[in-house]
């Protein structure tokens, strides 16, 4: 299996990591790694966007060449909820 090395960051750009993952990993694995490593809430919906290409990665998307190239920047973006 080949690995791909890329950058992952939070949407507010306050957290950043260099990650090396197997290309058979999925978008959901990246989000889970960010949630685990940065103690992000687990009861939130997140989007994953490749900032370098502008493409979104759905949870089941494999990290293949068409979606993640070495050095790309991926952003984990939370849905924000408010109430009264």
């Amino acid at each position, binding site marked *: 299996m080949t690995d791909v090395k890329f950058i992952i960051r939070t949407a507010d750009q306050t957290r950043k990591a260099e990650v090396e993952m197997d290309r058979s990993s999925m978008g959901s694995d990246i989000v889970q790694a960010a949630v685990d490593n940065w103690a992000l809430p687990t009861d939130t919906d997140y989007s994953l966007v490749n900032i370098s290409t502008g493409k979104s990665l759905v949870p089941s998307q494999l990290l293949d060449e068409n979606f993640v190239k070495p050095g790309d920047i991926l952003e984990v973006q*939370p849905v924000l909820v*408010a109430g009264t």
Partner: protein
Amino acid sequence: MRWQDQSEVPALPPTAAFLETLSMPDAVRLGRLGNMAPRVVISSACFEAMIAHLAASRDELGGLLVGQAYGVDTPQVVAVRHCAASTAFDSTGVSLRMEADVWNIARPLLGPGAAIVGWYHSHPDLGAFFSDTDRTTQRSFFRQAFSLGIVIDPIRREMRAFIGPDCVEIPPSNMMIHGPSTFFQSAAE
């Protein structure tokens, strides 16, 4: 999987760097509030854009705030210069879900001296306060000491701001709108 954290907390510029951009009377006025709580200075263009956005509906609306915080050890001034309105959302008169695309709307506004400094939303005709849900969102995703949560009731014309993960309320006297002229208008007036 190999995970190498590269997060850095960038040092905030000193408050003097913000004061230098003001006229002398404005700088003096900003210093003379009788309290040490952070000052929130919203550009008038941003404030007007926020009000125009939030007044457009009886349902809750919101978005992100872009600007710069100043202060060496603790944030002393949070300058809010742009707002990024959420355009993909689900809302009622008492709830709001902003889809993640709001971050893509804010991103082109970011750069040197322009970071995400918080978020804003409306409570139409319910008063400006921070609900339990609002506190949870602030604690979860606006975790910097300078992170602001601004709530506006566009009908009752109320505005309140809360800072940091603990959602400490900013005194109304410390909320200021900074116009193109050298005129400060406290949001409390």
